[in-house]
């Protein structure tokens, strides 16, 4: 039995404490920002000129492709790795806290420090290359900085940390008896995982995935500091910042940001569409 609880309209008042501040300090300014995208540079009036420019000039529209090419594979890989790690670490285990702590540690560094660390660690003469060279795995240093891979690594490290910080708790939220039941019915570990464990946490996993993905679509710092912001890592945010900060063209900057928001929304909708096609709900036994 899982009846939908008797709902009282009053419960919706609980949305207000968070909605009201957001409407005042976010939605209203945002609206002003959106209006800017329909105004010509430094002028008033109404125009689609900014959007037309975005979708006709490669400097702008290529950002969609470049950002997605960089972020989507990274986000998928991050999910796989973070999932594998937290899945393996679920349950009670000695030293688990420490390991999880270390894995989500980059989150506490923030992207600037992570970028500094990446430069120091992955630079041609850094430890990473020195170790691989000494092990004889490579003949010359790998070029991992100031290009696609630099930003990819930064996204990867922060993404794995972020996803892990969210998954760590969720991994323990399923009722172990469900897995035991599956095993007793003859399911191998893999089948148990695929047919029982994963479907149960799938909806949460997808939520976290969506969250991480849309956040990383806004990658800026790492695209500048360890990427190549002129080509491979020329993401939405790079162009938006450039418009605002170099050309003081807030109209175009906001237009780029709006397109980015639409891209994020599209990704979100896709993920949520996938999510809704599976089981969403409590991972405990119903009795």
């Amino acid at each position, binding site marked *: 039995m899982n009846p939908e609880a008797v709902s009282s309209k009053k419960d919706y008042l609980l949305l207000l404490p968070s909605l009201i501040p957001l409407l005042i300090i976010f939605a209203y300014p945002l609206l002003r920002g959106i209006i800017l995208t329909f105004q010509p540079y430094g002028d008033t009036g109404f125009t689609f000129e900014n959007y037309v420019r975005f979708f006709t000039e490669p400097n702008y529209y290529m950002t969609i492709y470049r950002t997605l090419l960089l972020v989507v594979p990274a986000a998928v890989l991050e999910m796989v790795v973070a999932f594998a790690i937290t899945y393996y670490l679920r349950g009670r285990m000695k030293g688990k806290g420490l390991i999880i702590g270390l894995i989500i540690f980059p989150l506490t560094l923030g992207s600037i420090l992570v970028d500094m660390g990446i*430069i120091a660690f992955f*630079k*041609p*003469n850094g430890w990473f290359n020195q170790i691989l060279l000494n092990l004889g795995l490579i003949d010359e*240093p790998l070029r991992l*900085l100031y290009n696609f891979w630099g930003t990819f690594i930064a996204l990867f490290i922060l993404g794995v940390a972020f996803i892990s910080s969210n998954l760590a708790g969720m991994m323990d939220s399923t009722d172990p008896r469900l897995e035991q039941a599956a095993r007793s019915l003859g399911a191998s570990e893999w089948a148990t995982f695929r047919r029982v464990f994963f479907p149960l946490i799938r909806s949460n996993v997808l939520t976290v995935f969506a969250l991480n993905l849309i956040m990383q679509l806004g990658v800026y710092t790492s695209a500048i500091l360890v990427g*190549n*912001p*002129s080509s491979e890592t020329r993401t939405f945010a790079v162009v938006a910042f450039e418009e605002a900060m170099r050309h*003081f063209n807030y109209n175009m900057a906001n237009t780029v940001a709006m397109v980015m928001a639409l891209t994020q929304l599209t990704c979100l909708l896709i993920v949520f569409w996938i999510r809704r096609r599976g089981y969403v709900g409590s991972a405990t036994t119903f009795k």
Partner: protein
Amino acid sequence: GSKEGGTDSSQTSTDAAAELQEERITITFYSVAGGDEYYNDILIPLFEEQMSGKYEVLYARATPQEIISKIKAQGQNPNIDVVVTGLDGLPMGINEGVWKQLIPEFEEEVRFEELNDIARTYVEKFNGYGVPVTVGPGGPVLAYNSDKVEQPPTTFVELKSWISENPGKFMYAAVSSSGPARGFFFGLIQSLGEDMNDPQSLTQTWEYLSDIGQMIDSYPSKTSDTFNFLYDGTVDIIPHSPFWYASLKAEGIVPPNIQAVKMEDAKQIIDAHFYAMVNNLPEEKEKAVLEFINFAMSKEAQSQMLSRAMTPVNENVSADLILPDYQETYQNVLEFALPDFKDGDQLIIPEGEWVLFPDIDIINDLYTQWEERILAQ
């Protein structure tokens, strides 16, 4: 306005001083050009002391773009009073209308008379919107690893052939975000005989850069990364700027095997800092800012810059005026300054060996072209 006018606060009793403490005037001072080691560490304490606590200077930093956005956001009640900015922020702010024109209106307060020649050129170039604080050579200079490079190239031609013999061993940072890279870039334009003020004409420059680009692994966005790569042996030659090099050497944080040479076939591109006053300040604030600039432009205050390897613009500065606390650093700076940039106990800009930066629009155009033609490859 104050009724007493010229009352000297230093003569008041301790009680009165305590009272004055209450009504101290705050000057909010932002640097968007770096230079903490001078503005924050030397100038501000000196000023506050000289004024016997009449003023309190709040110091903070930002990038030019940020500060201009901030000033614009503040609208009619600015909380920022004076800004020290580089060659990018000054024209930007002029375009955005955030600075107040200081010269000729306040010629006297800002000691226009005491400025040297280069500084005066800049005053002219920017219609007196900013008061030059320091002007100095910005390169081209090469720093190299003397263990690896016996004969450092001193011309761009030599450099190119060295690079092709040593692929991957030369590096410069993104020109849009690095001073030494700019020195290198504008030096190159000169050496090839092209006109840096005509951004559409630089065919040879782009050719040169894209040729050596084949042998350059990456373009860091931060200058300090190129320094580190030089120090740790990843690369052997990078562009530098003469006094920055000297001050780093003076700090003792550059390994001894790193040396520098001046590029001979280009003039030094002149970098500068300016004091800029924010528009629409209340009268009282405006007065305070002018008093601050007035002090900052004095030969006493300007002389201290030498110890930070910055070249002052006040013609009357002298090494003798450097306070004892900073004498030792100054000696270190002198020791490591390249021969072309010192004369006895003075830091100098080689006579006639300098050129000014182009206008901001041209610069932006060049940066964009560099990014599209070189970085994006």
